[in-house]
């Protein structure tokens, strides 16, 4: 029963051609002539008709699934308030423009002062959202410790580093060093605190770039959902991953691809190491 034109030698080639048009046909985006050609083919080809039905069905189900979302209660009211909150507009000309300019100038000045007084906060303010909050945990330490805090650019010797890292992480630095590209060195390794939180921090340097590997014990509810996540904020790239108990970050001023590559080089060693630190 399902034969159609497939007895012909060129049947499959025609079907192939027609199938390339099926989605555009459904969207009514084909030129008239092509649309009629597809129509004629569908009349005689049950396989392509079945294919069209599948595509139409997926589309209908996709529409139903996406359209099932309901707008959260209160959003409309929030928008109305926000819009109406901006209605107070000046009634007359020049003086109002001048006043507005003065206000803008003040705002800009305050903005500049704030940024200067606390550059970390300025960068951190650009982040929001739940996942971001978890990536921010690592970024905060990188900014506070590796970027804005003065630390010696001279490599610390191995025994000092082991002492600074504390007994639990004393042997981490040489393991990481072994996985770094040849022009990179671990120059610092220590425990540090930022935002009241304890971190284990290796600072690596190479080719004029600074990279942090940052580990911190998870707090309640923190998770990267088992995935590797990457974000760019300002001039920094943050790649976060996790083990059972720890959040781990590779953060650098390199580009996204290089940072991700470095993360891929280090992550297996870090995960294995952290697995040995369970509990």
């Amino acid at each position: 029963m399902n034969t159609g034109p497939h007895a012909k030698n060129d049947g499959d080639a025609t079907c192939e051609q027609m199938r390339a048009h099926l989605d555009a046909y459904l969207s009514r985006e084909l030129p008239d002539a092509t649309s009629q050609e597809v129509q004629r083919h569908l009349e005689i080809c049950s396989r392509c008709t079945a294919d069209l039905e599948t595509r139409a069905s997926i589309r209908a189900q996709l529409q139903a699934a996406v359209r099932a979302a309901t707008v959260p209660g209160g959003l409309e009211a929030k928008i109305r308030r926000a819009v109406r909150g901006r209605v107070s507009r000046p009634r007359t000309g020049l003086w109002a423009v001048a006043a507005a300019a003065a206000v803008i100038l003040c705002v800009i000045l305050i903005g500049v002062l704030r940024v200067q007084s606390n550059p970390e906060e300025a960068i951190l303010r650009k982040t929001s959202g739940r996942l971001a909050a978890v990536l921010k945990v690592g970024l905060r330490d990188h900014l506070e410790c590796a970027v804005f805090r003065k630390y010696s650019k001279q490599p610390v010797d191995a025994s000092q580093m082991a002492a600074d890292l504390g007994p639990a992480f004393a042997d981490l630095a040489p393991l990481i060093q072994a996985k770094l590209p040849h022009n990179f060195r671990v120059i610092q390794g220590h425990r540090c605190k930022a935002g009241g939180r304890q971190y284990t921090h290796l600072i690596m340097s190479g080719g004029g770039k600074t990279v942090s590997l940052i580990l911190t014990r998870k707090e309640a509810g923190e998770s990267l959902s088992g995935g590797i996540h990457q974000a760019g904020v300002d001039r920094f790239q943050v790649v976060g991953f996790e083990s059972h108990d720890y959040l781990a970050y590779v953060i650098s001023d390199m580009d996204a691809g290089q940072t991700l590559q470095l993360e891929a080089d280090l992550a297996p060693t870090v995960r294995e190491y952290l697995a040995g630190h369970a509990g």
Partner: protein
Amino acid sequence: MLFSKLPRTDEFEKVALPHLNELYRTAARLLGDGTKAEDVVQETYLHAWKSFARFEPGTNCRAWLFKILVNTIHHHRRNWFNLRRVQESEEILEKTAACAAPVPLRMAQEEILRALSRLPSDYRTAVLLADVEEFSYKEIAGLLGVPIGTVMSRLSRGRKLLREQLSELARSYGIGPAGREGSA
């Protein structure tokens, strides 16, 4: 002159708010996060309100709002939120979903949304705008600011990936070709 054409909040709300639902659901699917979608939609309306004086009555308000939404999301992504699950990058997706198989005619909505969420965001945007919001290819090109050929190739690849993922899912459920042959 500058203030001669004051837009009216009533008028703005009347033409713009009916599209809240569509903007929200699109944002939710593009961002994969309801809270972020709320923020972005609110921001979209504020941007729209600010430029409402330049909006020409009678032109397509819905496309205008979607364009602002797309730009707002794009701006967020560029500034910080270039969050992506590395495992779900386009390349890996293409590798794992290489061959097509029949798709079951009925699937759970969550499964479909999950498959959609795994599309690279450019493809997902094109598919949502064309197949759910039913904008024309030309309108999509206008609101994304890309040539129509780009829209067509994103759509073609996005739809194909979605089909492939759904058929992958069908296979994992043990739903084979047999399920769809009975109608002949």
